[in-house]
């Protein structure tokens, strides 16, 4: 178990390193940020001064080395635009994003797993077909469109829910729904297929041969096996949610990390983009690590692997 965790940890470090190189290079392909930071009509020398001040005049590999040296001490640099540490900006937005993602995740699992189980148990019958329609809708309707339709319906027509902003429980309902909608469909589909596979297994047949009530066959013998891949997907999706909420956060003016990334890209605020992407990637890698360990806890075959 210990060597297993150590090995996983090693892979995680390599992933982060590769990500940092990639984002550092790519963000510099978007153009020169100084043109967006100076007053219109500023002189060339003024621009040069800002470039020097931001360290953009040095060779790119020196910039990267400096960035990584600072990063290793937990320093993500200063935002060009906000003139404050990226980590501070990030931390101020993170709770909002986590709250949104957690609500969306709970929504997606509460809808996705039971409906997936129901579809698998009633395969080919009414609830399975209803589930297919739901999954098709969920996977094909873009989050921003779902968001806009909801605003139109619940805020404009019914005037039940606030259309944007944050602060109360009411504010989070629509963004969480818009963000979780797609994932509920994804979780439902995976639960269904995974459950179908397990229901056809010999050990489920043996469970029935033992004379167990169907509820125990499904809830104990089948579901526990079927839910393993769903948990993996959900774990990755939680982090994906934090990081793809850009669109939903923009539609609902939700002050999370997605909005921060959006602003960072718009202003060519390199440190902000780098920081948000590396922290997001770090989260994904960390959750994958956590899931690998969780697997080992659930599944004794992995636990004892050397």
């Amino acid at each position, binding site marked *: 178990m210990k060597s297993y965790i150590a090995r996983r940890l090693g892979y995680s470090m390599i992933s982060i390193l590769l990500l940092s190189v990639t984002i550092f290079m790519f963000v510099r392909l978007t153009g020169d940020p100084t043109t967006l930071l100076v007053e219109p009509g500023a002189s060339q020398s003024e621009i040069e001064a800002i470039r020097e001040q931001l360290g953009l005049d040095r060779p790119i590999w020196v910039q990267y080395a400096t960035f990584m040296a600072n990063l290793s001490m937990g320093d993500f640099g200063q935002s060009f635009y906000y003139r404050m540490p990226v980590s501070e900006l990030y931390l101020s937005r993170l709770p909002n994003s986590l709250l949104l993602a957690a609500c969306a995740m709970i929504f997606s699992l509460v809808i996705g797993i039971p409906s997936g189980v129901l579809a698998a148990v009633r395969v080919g019958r009414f609830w399975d077909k209803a589930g297919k329609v739901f999954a098709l809708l969920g996977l094909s309707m873009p989050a921003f469109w779902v968001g806009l339709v909801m605003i139109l319906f619940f805020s404009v027509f019914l005037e039940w829910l606030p259309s944007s902003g944050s602060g109360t429980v009411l504010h989070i309902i629509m963004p969480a729904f818009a963000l979780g909608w797609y994932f509920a469909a994804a979780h439902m589909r995976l639960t269904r297929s995974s459950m179908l596979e397990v229901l056809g297994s010999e050990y489920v047949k*043996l469970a029935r041969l033992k004379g167990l009530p169907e509820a125990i066959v499904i809830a104990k013998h089948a579901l526990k096996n079927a839910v393993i891949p769903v948990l993996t997907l959900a774990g990755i999706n939680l982090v994906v949610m934090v990081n793809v909420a850009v669109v939903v956060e923009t539609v609902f003016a939700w002050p999370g990390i997605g909005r921060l990334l959006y602003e960072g890209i718009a202003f060519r605020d390199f440190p902000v983009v780098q920081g948000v992407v590396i922290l997001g990637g770090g989260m994904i890698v960390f959750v994958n690590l956590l899931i690998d360990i969780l697997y080992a806890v659930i599944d004794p075959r992995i636990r004892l692997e050397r």
Partner: protein
Amino acid sequence: MTSSIPNSASFKPLAAGHTKAMTTAGPLLELDGVSTHYVSAQGTRVVPAVDQVSLKINAGETLGIVGESGSGKSTLALTILRLLPPAGRIVSGRMLFEGEDLLRKSDLEMRRIRGKRIAMILQDPMASLNPLFSIGDQVGEPIRVHEGATRRSAWSRAIELLKSVRIPAPETRVSQFPHEMSGGMRQRIVGAIAISCGPRLLIADEPTTSLDLTIQAQYLNLLRDLQREHGLALIFITHNLGIVAKMCDQLAVMYAGRVVESGPVSRIFNAPAHPYTRALLNSIPRMGSNNRRLVAIEGQPPDMVSLAPGCSFAARCPSATDHCRAEAPPETRLEANRTVRCWLAGTEANLPAAARVSGAV
């Protein structure tokens, strides 16, 4: 049975004593004209997987069911337990178990019979155990469900059961998981699950096909010992005639969903009445035979979706007549407990006896 008989000599009488405890005088299980069809989703195609099967098995007896893959053996087993896949329908017949028709039982009553009075061992020991639960949990589960035992008492019963199927160090094995066991051990654990509630009938569906030969023999001996100790009736589904010769009292030969011949093993082996049985016995490779080619049955089993009207074996039968191809033969009784489905059975019973397998395998 007198009590003066010493224990060591009382194997058979003991078994007889167990079977005598039965309340009903008739056979333990009697199938009468049972048919099971697989129906396609639109209901357009029907496969008669089990067709008009009549069988009998007495308490403590072993019935072998042999036949090629797809001949309906496994479907018959699942029919008895009423655990067919959704496409399977039992369309006719009666299944009397201890005098009661299983087809008239409610789902709940059926569930209380499964694992308690009729148990079944599946083919694949590697896949039969749930990888996520301990051996003790899985072995004790039927006891908890059927007898309402507590988790703790089911656990100690599980240890006893592991001991009775000769798992070494049952106290440590009981808390281990399936992946920590060898194939032979897993199959014995499946056996322990099967006998956990003291069933009257055990159906074993090719329980040794995935085990290697030395383990097979061990497992068969174990099954026989369990049968003797618990007075179990055993239905043994296999395509290995050697195992039938070793294990079974009665034999039913299935072909294309029908029982083409049934009766006591020794009678059938010495004088097979159906051409298929004869061909089957002929195809057993024999040591010391000069003929180096293996004997095969010519042709293929029929397509079950579009069965011809006549005898389903006619296309492969060396002595088939026009009558055979036109009309399916009914089940005819040759002697007490011996049936055959063949128009030629009466006339050709004197053909050279095909095999003397009983000693050869």
